[in-house]
């Protein structure tokens, strides 16, 4: 029973939504259900918050490695929750947008979250370089193809590419590196992306069908746990 009802719910909701696409009066059903999902997700925040606090408090209690930093997390969490839920310093009071300029919440976003977020993102510039060094090695045929394609495109994106190959006459201009880079983007790149995309869409379709039919059910966990 504990598994039958959820399987039925999945089947029912899934089938309903599939048919709603073909039936104009039911078209908005999908939108509403997506909104439902957002609302359920907000309830799940309680689970998330509870878990976060539990993990860090237990780290503190057990004096695990780096327990001192758990205090930072807990204070940061509590403070942000406090200024966000009570809209502290918000020029428009409770009715205003929570991210109104001047509110503490927004200041925290601008001066704490934003620099951290964009610096983490900017680390990618470094990692792109270290990955290129470490992994672009002609170990086998596949890796060599990968390496060559990346190199041609990289070269094509700098003035070097044009300078190296400007001597090639117009009747052979496809061999000028910038042109070659564009051509690769428009042919091989397009073909590869399309093949993956078609595969993915078929995979999603098949997977959805398995879920609706109740064939794929790992997400429900075991029979006895509960």
């Amino acid at each position, binding site marked *: 029973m504990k598994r039958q009802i959820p399987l039925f719910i999945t089947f029912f909701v899934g089938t309903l939504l599939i048919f709603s696409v073909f039936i104009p009066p039911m078209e908005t059903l999908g939108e509403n259900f997506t909104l439902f999902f957002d609302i359920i997700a907000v309830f799940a925040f309680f689970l998330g918050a509870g878990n976060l606090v539990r993990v860090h408090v237990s780290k503190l209690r057990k004096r695990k490695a780096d327990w001192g930093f758990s205090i930072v997390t807990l204070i940061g969490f509590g403070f942000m929750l406090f200024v966000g839920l009570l809209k502290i310093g918000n020029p428009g009071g409770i009715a205003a947008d929570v991210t109104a300029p001047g509110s503490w919440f927004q200041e925290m976003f601008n001066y704490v979250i934003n620099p951290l977020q964009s610096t983490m993102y900017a680390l990618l*510039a470094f990692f792109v370089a270290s990955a290129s*060094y470490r992994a*672009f090695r002609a170990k086998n045929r596949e890796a060599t193809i990968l390496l060559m394609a990346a190199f041609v495109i*990289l*070269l094509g994106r*700098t*003035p*070097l590419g*044009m300078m190296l190959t400007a001597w090639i006459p117009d009747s052979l201009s496809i061999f000028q590196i910038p042109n070659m880079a564009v051509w690769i983007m*428009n042919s091989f790149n397009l073909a590869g992306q399309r093949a993956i995309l078609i595969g993915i869409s078929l995979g999603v379709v098949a997977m959805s069908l398995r879920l609706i039919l109740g064939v794929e059910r790992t997400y429900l966990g075991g029979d006895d746990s509960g």
Partner: protein
Amino acid sequence: MDNIGVIISLILILGGLVTLLIRSLQAREVDRRIIFLFIFLAVAAPILFPMTFKEKATQVVKSVFDKIENLPEGSTVLLSFDFDPAMAPEVQPMANAISRHCFEKGHKIIFMSLWATGQALLSHSLSEFILPGFPEKENLVDYVSIGYKAGNEGVLNVIITDIQKMFPTDVNSVPLDSIPIFDNIESCKDLDFIMSIGGGKPGPKEWVLFVGDPGDVPVGVGVAAVVAPQMYPYYPGQIVGILGGVKGAAEYESELIRVHPRFAEMDTPGLRMMGPQTLAHVVIMAFIVIGNVVFFRGRRREKKE
């Protein structure tokens, strides 16, 4: 002062790379922190000491340049600013360079926008970037801004037969009838060249499909880098040329400076922004080479043993 900084940082970066390459011949791996340091230097140095690299225009960019260069003096060019502030860093440099080029060649320019946000950007760039270099140019005689009209592709559908129907006046409510530029211009078909700069919809693609093709008017486009590959299928049949992203702008700027040396003094944001990009690309490519040298050397050594 700046030059010394540029020279020192270039020596540091390129010299360092050569040293690493020599070391790699002995199959020695490079520590990742050294790679990180090189990337940091390659990006930070050109920001501190503005560094520009000589770009050589590719054919797609050069065709736009040549088109404007070879139009007879006094031709009428339409420039459409089809972008918003988010896209501006990438495409604004092209808009500036092309406007300057047209003025330099004595063409008349009609400015417009298919984006509501474009009109503000348009007047801003006119007053801030374009006109200061050409104090002698006169509004309504040498250029005119007819601004933005709602209607997306619909606007194009109308102005291909009649510009006045869609734009009865310019942005300052001067009737088009009384503007000298429009003496011989009734519709887009009478224009000598159209340049659309943008990246979204409506934008360059719509100009090609709704005006360039049906009206048989030459159209050039300037687009954000991510959109550029999607425009290539139209080249060279339906569009004169393509400027793609900051690189496109930089190429155009360098071509402009090459042909008209007086522009060397002006701000060239495209070339400036390409500085960190070029150096970083070179560093990454160098590390790919070094990595492979290490790899093959290491393999040969293994075989020997």
